[in-house]
């Protein structure tokens, strides 16, 4: 049983207009076995939260804390966080020149586990996971994300989720850009990883669509860098009917353009 605890987190970025605060005091605790949906309009800071947990250098934590079983995550480098068990499924996975998927997956697995996986079982495991996510076998020989469609990139993110077996998965708008079939395949992957009982999930999304396939235990509504309402799965149903207008008006602020969604 692990706990990822975010306390009163304030995060800013440098822009041409100066420093801009994006997260304005976020507190959230996720335990193994729980699925938390973070929902909110574009520009509310959801992706900033995801990237900050993973340690993206663009984001500066000005106050607050993130701990994993009491360990200070903010003091860890990006790779240390991953090895500690934090996984970010990215919204826009980059294409990495010169590195095949096979090589990449094995190198990452070795780094995370601290030892190279046994070649035979590893190859089988990768192949089985790829089959389940309906990723063509020839992807293994292609460079990481190179020439993959948006949907293929998302599937490959979930492939990594299943293979690396993190303690906490942060899924940053994994549903965006997916058609219904791909959404189902990807959701099944997340559910399989979750069903191991060893993972907590933070599911960041703009839309309720993915929540038909992945059932959250908790729903947090995120507006203007803060959580403005929390509840159970029923909150998602209400959002589906009412949208975010109520919160945006309630917050007394116009929704910022989608520049850091």
């Amino acid at each position: 049983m692990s706990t990822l605890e975010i306390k009163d987190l304030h995060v800013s970025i440098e822009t041409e207009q100066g420093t801009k605060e994006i997260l304005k005091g976020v507190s959230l605790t996720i335990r193994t076995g729980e699925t938390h949906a973070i929902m909110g309009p574009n520009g509310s800071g959801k992706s900033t939260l995801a990237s900050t947990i993973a340690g993206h250098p663009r984001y500066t934590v000005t106050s607050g804390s993130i701990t994993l079983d009491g360990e200070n995550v903010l003091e860890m480098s990006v790779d240390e966080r991953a090895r500690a068990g934090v996984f970010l499924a990215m919204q826009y996975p980059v294409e990495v020149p010169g590195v095949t998927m096979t090589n990449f997956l094995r190198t990452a697995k070795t780094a995370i586990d601290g030892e190279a996986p046994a070649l035979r079982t590893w190859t089988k495991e990768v192949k089985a996971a790829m089959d389940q996510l309906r990723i063509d076998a020839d992807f293994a020989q292609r460079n990481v994300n190179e020439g993959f469609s948006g949907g293929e990139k998302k599937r490959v993110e979930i492939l990594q989720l299943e293979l690396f077996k993190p303690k906490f998965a942060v899924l940053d708008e994994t549903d965006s850009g997916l058609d219904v079939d791909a959404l189902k395949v990807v959701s099944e992957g997340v559910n399989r990883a979750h069903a191991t009982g060893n993972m907590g999930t933070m599911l960041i999304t703009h839309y309720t669509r993915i929540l038909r396939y992945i059932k959250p235990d908790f729903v947090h509504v995120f507006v203007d860098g803060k959580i403005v309402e929390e509840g159970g799965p029923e909150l998602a149903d209400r959002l589906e009917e009412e949208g975010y207008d109520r919160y945006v008006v309630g917050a007394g602020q116009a929704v910022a353009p989608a520049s850091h969604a």
Partner: protein
Amino acid sequence: MTAEVTTEKARIGAPSIAGFTEEGEQLVAAKVDRHHSHGVQVMSSRAERLTSHDVADFAIPNGREEEWRFTPVREIANLLSDTATDGDVLSLSVEAPDGFVKPALRAGEAPRGATLVPADRAAVVASANTEEALHVQIPAEAELQEPVRVLVKGNGAGRRSNSHYVIEAGENSRAVVILEHEGAADHNGNVEVFVREGAQLTVVSVQLWEDDAKHLAQHDAEVAKDAVYKHIAVSLGGKIVRLNSNVRFSGEGAEAELLGLYFADAGQHLEHRSFVDHNVANCKSNVLYKGALQGKGAHTVWVGDVLIQKQAEGTDSYEKNQNLVLTDGCRADSVPNLEIETGLIEGAGHASATGRFDDEHLFYLMARGIPEDVARRLVVRGFLNEIIQQIKVPALEARLTEAVERELTAGNN
């Protein structure tokens, strides 16, 4: 902004660039200053370039000449002067089966000088100051299992060395010849290659010089009917390396591949120029140079000329240069030039792309638990391996892979 990339001339066709979604030029556009000179410069045909055995025909360049404009000419003054070799500056050894090393060739003794006619000041003074040229001849029909190795060791930085090597691959022979350069010297080295009818010859020139070595070279090959020639330039060491790899044909059905890989660190100037002269019909050529750059003042240059002459109908040619910029403060110049004098060809294309390994790539790999140094190694190794695996001499491939890793480790700061 300190990283610079230049790419000149228009691009023909749609190159597929391994590892980059977009062409590298666009990839870096947002982050990197670029200097374009489209349409400014009037290029004369490569065919009009002066070649001569007479030193008096080449003035000492001042750096403004088209073929010298990227080169730090002031730093190579010693190599451009008409100066004799400084005694024992080089230790030369040749590993080859008995009888392959023939009596040395003096100027005018065939086949020396038949194919390699100096095309610049450095090459002309190199040959003029080489009294006796090493002559390696692979007998007709011979199929070598082991490569021929020519080991060139420089015994002192700043000391002048001139050389001219002649390599002949007899009819239908199969061989690999490796030239290995180590140590330090101001080395002016010409290599003249004859690939006789039906032969298959690979020449690998490896520059593993120490940091204070300077090396200028002209490697010319003539490829006969149905012969296959592969030239691979590997430049990792040296303060300044400038290697011209040129090829022309003497019979139809011949193929030439000019490949290169280079890795420039802080303060290093690595320049590669290739020229494929399609002077005969129905020949094929492929040029691919790949380079990595890291560190302040790392400078690489690739200039690739392909000339398809009027009579060279049925030519199939392609040339490509790709650079991977690993840090700020580097400069990669890349200039593909394609001249086509006949429309009756199979294909002709050129491409150039320079991409950055940037913070987003690094973040992606590190977010999967991979430490920074491993991440860089993974990317560079993958990028350069495409050339290394063409050598097909496992021991050398392993050594070069290690040398590339050392470059990366050295650059971790």
